[in-house]
Structure formats: structure tokens, C-alpha cells
């Protein structure tokens, strides 16, 4: 019996790991979304984290905990000089600038001989265990939960709702926004390092624009209003392909296009009908049920 359980675990272990990693990545996008900024530089930060960790693993004898720490610090530090100029930008411009940053980081790594260019590092020892991923995820969730209830959390919400108004109330919007960019970078870097030591490799192709779009989708589909939303979105969208794989093969549809199609459809439906994500579903249903109750007041 235990052998069967162990086999089951080993079979699906990587899926479980990726759910956790994607959760971390979704949270890193959420960090900046929570104050109303759409920053899409995560791929670049993730690359910095992954490469830092791999380099340290190969060239220094540091224990894994320190390697992870370094992998979290490097992108955080990089986020500061990035943050200053771009935080002046609004909405779509910020998004585009950060996309550009991510691409530049990727191209730099492609051309860097020191890190083997496009080949990256292979044979990275598998130092990551699944519990580490979930510990990091739990830590991040805890941090965001405490943040929510703190003064800083209220400030962030105010900034998200109406930035100019928040400023007039004396909130140092720029400092808060920068902090969230740094937090997002730290989470992305940590995820990058954990992933590198799970998939045995680091290469620039992993950190593409498409990856960032995925992270954004997790956060939006899950619900960017609550800190647990993105994690839910990540879990849902990571497990969905596994389910689809079984279905698709029976219906004769290719898993690749099907997965892409369902991702797109889910995102579209959510943004149109459930803009606060899956987490808001119970609340929405409750509201509709109440509106349908006989005798409920109708707006004139």
C-alpha cells in the first residue's frame, strides 16, 4: 500500500512542485498589482534569481539556504534602479517599460559567454525539495496577510483606488510602490532559484515574455483583490492542463492548442464576468441569490 502511495507521489510530485512555484510567481505579480501597478518585469527578476543561485551552487560551497537568500537579494537590489524611473509612468506605459526590461535581461543572458549564453547551466543539482517551495509560499502568504492588515496595507489600497487622492492625504506613494516592486522582484528571484534547482537547469529561454503573461493570467484569474487569489489561480491553471490532457486525447484535440485555448477562454470569461477572479465567486453567487429573493428592494 505504501509502495503504491509512494509511486503516486513520485508520479505527480513535479506537478505539485510547479503548482507551488507558479503560486510564488503569481504572488510576485500580485505584489505590484495590489497598489495598482502593472509591472511585468518578473521574467527578468526570475532570471537574475535563477542564474545567481546556479552560479553560487557551482562556484561556491554555500549551503542552499544562503544561496536562496542571495538569489532573493540580487533581483531586489536590481529592482531599485529600475523602479525609480519607471514608477513615474502610468498604467500601460509602465507595463510596456517593464516588459522591455525583462526582454533586455533575457537578451543579455543569451549573449553572456560567462554563463554559456543560450545554453545556460545544465546539471544543476536538485537541491530543492517540494516542502521548501511550499514553505516559501506559506511565508509569502503570511507576509502579505500581515501587510494587508497593517497601515502599509491600507496605504497600498488607497494608492490603488486613487493615487492622486492618496498623495494629497500625505501617503508617500512612490516609496510604497517601489517597495512592492522590490517585493515582487524578491519573490520572483526566489521562485527562479527554486525552479533552477528543481529542473536541473537554467537557460534564458525559460524567462520569456510568454512566461510573464502566464504569471499575470494566474494572478488575474485567481483574483488580484485578495492575497490568496493568485495562488488559487496558479493552482487552477497549472492543474487544468493535466486534466485536459486526459480529455483532449479522447476528443481528438491536440493538448497544446487545447491548453492554450482554455487558458485564453478562462482569462476572457474571468475578465469579462468575474473581474475579481475566482476568489470572488462565492461572494458573487451570494449577491445574485440575494438579489433574486422575492421582496428584495429593487433600485428604482
Amino acid at each position: 500500500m505504501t509502495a503504491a502511495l509512494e509511486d503516486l507521489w513520485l508520479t505527480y510530485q513535479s506537478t505539485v512542485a510547479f503548482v507551488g512555484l507558479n503560486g510564488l510567481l503569481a504572488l510576485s505579480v500580485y505584489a505590484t498589482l495590489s497598489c495598482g501597478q502593472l509591472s511585468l518585469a518578473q521574467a527578468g527578476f526570475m532570471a537574475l534569481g535563477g542564474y545567481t543561485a546556479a552560479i553560487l551552487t557551482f562556484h561556491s560551497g554555500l549551503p542552499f539556504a544562503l544561496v536562496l537568500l542571495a538569489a532573493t537579494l540580487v533581483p531586489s537590489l536590481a529592482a531599485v534602479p529600475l523602479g525609480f524611473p519607471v514608477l513615474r509612468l502610468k498604467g500601460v506605459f509602465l507595463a510596456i517599460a517593464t516588459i522591455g526590461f525583462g526582454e533586455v535581461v533575457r537578451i543579455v543572458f543569451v549573449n553572456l559567454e560567462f554563463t554559456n549564453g543560450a545554453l545556460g547551466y545544465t546539471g544543476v543539482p536538485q537541491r530543492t525539495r517540494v516542502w521548501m517551495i511550499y514553505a516559501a509560499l506559506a511565508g509569502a502568504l503570511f507576509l502579505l496577510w500581515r501587510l494587508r492588515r497593517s497601515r502599509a496595507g491600507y496605504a497600498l489600497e488607497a494608492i490603488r483606488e486613487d493615487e492622486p487622492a492618496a498623495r494629497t492625504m500625505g501617503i508617500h506613494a512612490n516609496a510604497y510602490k517601489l517597495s512592492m516592486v522590490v517585493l515582487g522582484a524578491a519573490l520572483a528571484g526566489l521562485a527562479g532559484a527554486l525552479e533552477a534547482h528543481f529542473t536541473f537547469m537554467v537557460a534564458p529561454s525559460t524567462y520569456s515574455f510568454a512566461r510573464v503573461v502566464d504569471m499575470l493570467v494566474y494572478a488575474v484569474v485567481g483574483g488580484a483583490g485578495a492575497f490568496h487569489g493568485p495562488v488559487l489561480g496558479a493552482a487552477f491553471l497549472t492543474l487544468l492542463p493535466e486534466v485536459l490532457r486526459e480529455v483532449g486525447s479522447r476528443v481528438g484535440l491536440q493538448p497544446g492548442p487545447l491548453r492554450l485555448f482554455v487558458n485564453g477562454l478562462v482569462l476572457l470569461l474571468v475578465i469579462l464576468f468575474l473581474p475579481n477572479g475566482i476568489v470572488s465567486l462565492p461572494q458573487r453567487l451570494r449577491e445574485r441569490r440575494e438579489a433574486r429573493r422575492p421582496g428584495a428592494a429593487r433600485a428604482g
Partner: protein
Amino acid sequence: MRLARWQSVAAAAAVLGSAASSARAAETVKIGAAFSLTGNAAVYGAQQKAGVLLAVEEINKSGKLKGITLEAVVEDDQTSKEQGIAVFQRFINRDKVNAIIGPTLSTTATAADPIAQQSKTPVVAVSNTAPKGITDIGDYVWRISLTEAQVIPSALQIVRAKLGFKNAALLYGNDDVFTKAGFDVMKAALEKEGIPIVEIQTFATKDRDFNAQLTALKGKNPNFLMVSALAEQAAGIVTQARQLGWNVPIMGGNGFNSPAFIKNAGQAAEGVYVGTAWNKPSPDPVNQAFIASMKAKGTDPDQFCAQAYTGVLVVAEAIKQAGMKGGRDDIKAGFAKVSGLATPLGTFSFLPSRDGNHAAAIQWVKGGKFEVVQ
């Protein structure tokens, strides 16, 4: 002579025992085949799947492995390393395969093969051509496909003898593992031959416009151009080069080795040299029989098909060499004894590094088809 009681019981037990063991010998050995059936490498995966299925069918029919039936479990790695890892996990822990063939791309292999190594399951790479990072993973990883390092240098020598060029230029995709590795090999080969390189240009996988690079290369007036690119770029590169009025002889790496290249480049493909791990026109009977059987199934085989087919042949040979035993360690031990095996790729053996070894060939495009250059 009457047997003592215990002797007849013992004799009966022995008879039953041998009956049981021959019933046991009718065992099924599962081989997991992980290929890119969807995603960017899908064009290769389809051919690989066909090759594996044909080989399994033929071996089972021939009864070569007395009492052992091979069963192929084919899954799609979706050209993604996450899926590759998941597929390997399923093969090893759920389906309990005794050997794995694939995955299609070297990038996927670097992520997935270590898992097989950890769980002591032998893997046969049939299309991974990155020189480093495959067999280095461990002693359970073996390789059929010749690396660019095994094909290009000898191919270059033949072309040089034929054309006698004085200098060369290089063009390669620098953000893809395969094309970058191919470039490293090409550069080293040119240097070893003492051919000066007058210019090097790069492009990105998504590029479709190569005019700028080709113009810059043309301006340096090289006598020979080596290109390391994937099939989808190869056609564009030669077409645009010819459109610019540049008739320099061109030699491509393994990415050019696909009928898609000829189809998309048309006239521009004529005269392009390509090193190949599979000498398709070879009159070798094993090769011709393979081609005929594939065609009978409605597929015109390409190199990837031939390599996947050979992969299964090698696994079967390993089982035979291990004394008709199909366990994971039996197969691994059997690989070490595979030598001089007749395959469509030629006479095959493993090198001490567990990489594959057989004669490579150089071909060029003539009249819309690949033709071997002697």
C-alpha cells in the same frame, strides 16, 4: 528404478518450476517513448513516434527476443521541459517502464533525464545532439544520435576537398541551445582545418528577416558560409541570401536536415550542403527494408524516424545481450555490450562515453532532393 517419494516430488516441482519460469519468460517489457507531439518540435516528434512503433511491431513479430514482448508507451512532452519531467515521472513510477526513449529536444532532456538517472532507469537519447549535458548526466543515459561534433568536422573536410575554399563566414542562432552548440562545433572545425573566419553574425529564433546579417556577411566576401539554424529559419536564410544576389556555397547543420527545408526554400535550396547522421540512399539491406516498411505505412521517413527506430533496435539488442532479461539494470548492462549492430543508420556501437558511433555522411540538395556527396 523407482524414484524415492521425495525425489518424485522434487522432480514434479522442477517441472512445474520450469513451466512457471517459461510462463514468466513470456513477459512484457515496457518502453516509454517521450516525444514532442505538439509544440515547436512537433514536426520531429511525429516521425519519431512512427519509427518507434514500427520497430516494436517488427521485433515482436520476428520473435527475436524469445518470449519477451516489447510494449511501447508513447506520451507527448509538448516541447516543454515541465511536461517532459512530468512524463518521465509517469513512465517511471506509474507505468513502470524499463527503458525510456527520447525526449525530442536536448533542452527537455537536460531537465528530464536526471530523473531517470536518479531512479536508475535507462534512457536512450535518439535526437539530442547537444555535445555536452546529455550523457554527462549519468551512466543510465545513453545516446544514439550523433552530435554535431561527430558529423560536422568530417563533413567539412569532404566539402573542403571538393570546393577548396580559402576562408569562411558563420551565421547562427544565438538564443537556442541546439543552434548555439552547432555554431561552437562549426567554429572549432573551421579553426582545426586552418580556415580563417572573416565574419560571424547572429540572429534570434524568432527572426524572419536576415537581410541585414546577410548583407554584412556578403560585404566581407567569404568563399563559404556555414549556417547553424533550425528548419524554420534555414529556408528563409538561403532564400534571402540568393535574393541578395549572393551565390556563395552554403553548408548547414542538422537543422537543415529536413524535407521542410527543401519545401520552403525551393530553388534556393539547390546546392546547399548538409551533414547528416543518416545516409538515406545507402543500399544497405537493413536500411532499405526499414524505408520500405515505413513507406508501406504511409510515411516517408526522415532522419529522426530512422534514429528512433534504431533506438528500439538497440534496446532489443541490449535485452538480448543481457541474456534475454528485460529489467532496468539488465538493459543498462546490455547497452555496454552492444557492438557492431546492423541498423538503418549503419553499423552501430556505443562509445565509452555512452554516445553513439556510426559512420556519418554529407549530402547536398540536387533537383529538389537530398543526395549523398562522396
